[in-house]
């Protein structure tokens, strides 16, 4: 774009939004230059703070007319670099679109704007005995719009699914500024599932401006069991036994010794420090049903011979157990100046094999790896610890991260369970899918957004990448607000 055109473009944005809501220049835009994948940083052309869906439409239309790439950003907690600015593009900050428009207890739906924080949906639904199920660890700060773009998960996905399973209807601004409605407020639909296609598209199909979410009745009771093992493999075998028993727990999580130590030091969850593997299994639901299931669960877990078992005695005890688990990543981060977290998936029965191999790869690179994972659905979270100030360590850590992703593909799994491909895993998408598969995805992208304006450079292996500039923890992470999970 010629300088004169660039000035016209900024003038047009300013005329629409006013000077206070169009940020340019290094200092005002600094907070928007990176997200929770801190290894990358990029300088946008401008950051605009929108107040309404109409403003989103107008900004997108201005970008489309000037062929300027853009992306919507919520709280910037993406671990895959999905909300990293497009170099010289426009960042549309959605945080002010944070109204919960409606909670309908009869239909069990909430209609929200995309800048609404995940946890506030459950808070708004609470008076009706309802809640919003997907629970990423950053749920106190991450937004529904970001959850939607990356199909975010959490610890409770096995039974009730990820974000995609809880989005019923959308109002969307397509990349050329056309506004459409897809889905509705019923759990059922007719015709191709366009809502399903949109969720998880990483911002490449445009921006959702109004979202109808499904709410679930709050479980009447929980039964939370902690079991400690003297090997990680034994904890993994316990998970297999629970699955074989026909039980369907709401969550099954495993932590290794390094993660236990860090979590314990950070929040004092009461975890046994000498455990090599710690298993958390949680049943949820109706009292009589959970009572019947818990007997079977205890019987199954005891056969796996934990050296210690503990059942949460009350809601506070349960919260303490989960606090340790949910803080594990930021806690492990304190052991090391930098870290990379991956979220590859392997078939559940191959978890043991995957963990052994990750350990071996870490030793070969001379890099420590801590593990916390959603064992119920085979979703690993290897945490690769390194010091970016030591020359070559970042490169070695990235090489190790890549080897772990390839391992997940080789074992028949996926390169990402819940963080998305984003910037970080683009080069591995082509290893997971064949050229014909990628070509079909590219055709869909180009048919929807021929100019590749919406979140340009993400997901596809051949996309143009911004420069790798710096590293260090995210400001919100330093403040203890977010964790990399």
């Amino acid at each position, binding site marked *: 774009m010629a300088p004169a055109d660039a000035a016209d473009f900024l003038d047009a944005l300013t005329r629409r939004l006013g000077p206070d809501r169009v940020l340019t220049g290094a200092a005002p835009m600094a907070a928007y230059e990176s997200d929770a994948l801190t290894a990358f940083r990029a300088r946008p052309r401008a950051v605009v703070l929108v107040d309404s869906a109409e403003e989103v439409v107008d900004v997108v239309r201005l970008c489309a007319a000037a062929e300027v790439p853009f992306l919507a950003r919520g709280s910037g907690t993406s671990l895959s670099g999905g909300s990293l600015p497009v170099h010289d593009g426009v960042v549309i900050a959605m945080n002010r679109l944070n109204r919960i428009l409606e909670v309908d207890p009869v239909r069990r739906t909430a209609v929200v704007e995309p800048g609404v924080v995940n946890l506030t949906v459950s808070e708004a639904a609470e008076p009706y005995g309802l809640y919003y199920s997907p629970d990423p660890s950053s749920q106190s700060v991450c937004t529904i719009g970001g959850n939607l773009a990356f199909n975010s998960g959490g610890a409770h996905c096995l039974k009730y699914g990820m974000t995609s399973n809880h989005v019923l209807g959308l109002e969307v601004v397509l990349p050329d500024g056309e506004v*459409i*409605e*897809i889905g509705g407020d019923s759990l*059922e639909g007719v*015709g191709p599932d366009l*809502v399903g296609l949109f969720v998880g598209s990483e911002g490449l199909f445009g921006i959702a401006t109004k979202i109808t979410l499904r709410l679930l009745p709050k479980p009447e009771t929980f039964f939370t069991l902690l079991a400690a093992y003297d090997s990680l493999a034994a904890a993994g075998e316990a998970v297999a036994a629970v699955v074989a028993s026909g039980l369907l727990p709401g969550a099954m999580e495993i932590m290794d010794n390094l993660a236990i130590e860090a979590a314990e030091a950070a929040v004092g969850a009461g975890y046994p420090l000498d455990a090599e593997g710690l298993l958390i299994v949680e049943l949820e639901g*109706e009292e009589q049903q959970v009572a019947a299931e818990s007997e079977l669960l205890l019987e199954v877990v005891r056969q796996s011979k934990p050296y210690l078992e503990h059942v949460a005695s009350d809601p506070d005890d349960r919260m303490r157990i989960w606090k340790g688990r949910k803080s594990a990543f930021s806690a492990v981060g304190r052991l090391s100046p930098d870290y990379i977290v991956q979220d590859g998936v392997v078939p*559940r029965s191959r978890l043991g094999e995957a963990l052994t191999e990750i350990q071996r790869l870490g030793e070969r690179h001379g890099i420590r790896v801590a593990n916390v994972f959603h064992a119920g659905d085979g979703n690993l979270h290897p945490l690769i610890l390194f010091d970016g100030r030591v020359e070559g360590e970042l490169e070695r850590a990235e090489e190790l991260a890549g080897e772990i992703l390839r391992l997940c593909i080789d074992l028949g799994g996926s390169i990402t369970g819940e963080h998305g491909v984003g910037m970080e895993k683009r080069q591995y998408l082509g290893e997971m899918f064949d050229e014909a*598969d990628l070509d079909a995805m590219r055709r869909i992208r180009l048919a929807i957004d021929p100019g590749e304006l919406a979140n340009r450079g993400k997901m596809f292996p051949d996309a143009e990448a911004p420069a790798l500039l710096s590293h260090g923890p995210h400001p919100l992470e330093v403040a203890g607000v977010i964790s990399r999970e």
Partner: protein
Amino acid sequence: MTGAPSRPGSAAVVAEAVRGAELVLPRGGGTKPALWSVEGAYVLDLSALSGITEYLPSEYTVTALAGTPLAEVEARLAAEGQYLPFDPLLVAAGSTVGGAVAAGANGPGRLRYGGLRDFLLAVTFVDGRGEIVRGGAKVVKNAAGFDLPKLMVGSLGRLGVLTECTFKVFPHPESCATLRVAGMALDEAIEAAGRVGAGAVEIECLDLAHGLAGWDLEIRIGGRSFALDARLKRAADLLDTDVTTLSGDADAAHWRTRREFGWASPDASVLKLPLTPATAGALEQVLADLDASQVARVYSAGIQQAFVAWPAERVADLPALDGALTETRLTALALRAPVEAANKPILGHRTGGELLRRVEQALDPAGRFGRL
């Protein structure tokens, strides 16, 4: 087209057939003729593309070729105490894996954990260019690439010919039983359904069936045998009226009949309509306005969908129904319909047309599958 195989036995042969056709639609078990009996279309019979290719009970995943009868899948899962939680329709009638996904229709049991969209993990399909495309992954959690499996749910054969599907499966409840309250007024039944639904009791199915004496409310509860009686009592207390209980074989047979459309006349068209408890009244009004208040129908899966049996003698009125649904912003899918109605399987209100047009352009630029 000439010389093309009518019963391809592999994805590669399907691809060849698609490349050679001007207008082509897939047919599985033939239970939902409205999806493929389109005038001028070459019908690709997928029944030879059959068989379970991988079943890993410990992974909660099953993979089958698209022409595999669902009855075969269900039997294999049942032997391991597992099931397809979306509760497929027309299983005994011969419905196949690919047909179920393409129709995107679920049975009453989808209420508990979700529908096809929530349980389809991976697909292989032949797109309109004759390319074999894979989407998703054969593991229970995955966020890599666009969610092509979900796009294929409800695609009615118009975006691709499915050749293989992977589903997430769950352990089957140990035992189930059903409470029934007969002869209610619709408002009263919807209110009672809301009362039980809002309580703590976890429900497998909740249907309202239209009968001669009013509406029958049916609530199915499943889980550990040991706790079932106490939970049934709890739900019955919430209903606070006379209930009868179906259990064991009677319970199973009842719900089998429901999803086989055994309650509908064999020559009736069967329509599926997504709705909510708040919009059921709008459908009732549409039917009343068309003098069709006596047609057999069921509000199913917690009143999130209706199945309506439109009588054969009133096929000529389907366009009027189409118009009335559009006005009330309701949508219907003709699952079973006579050939003359099949050129338009979706009736009533439509959304997302512009996005769908672009997706069709990407996957089927020449329009070989026709347009929705």
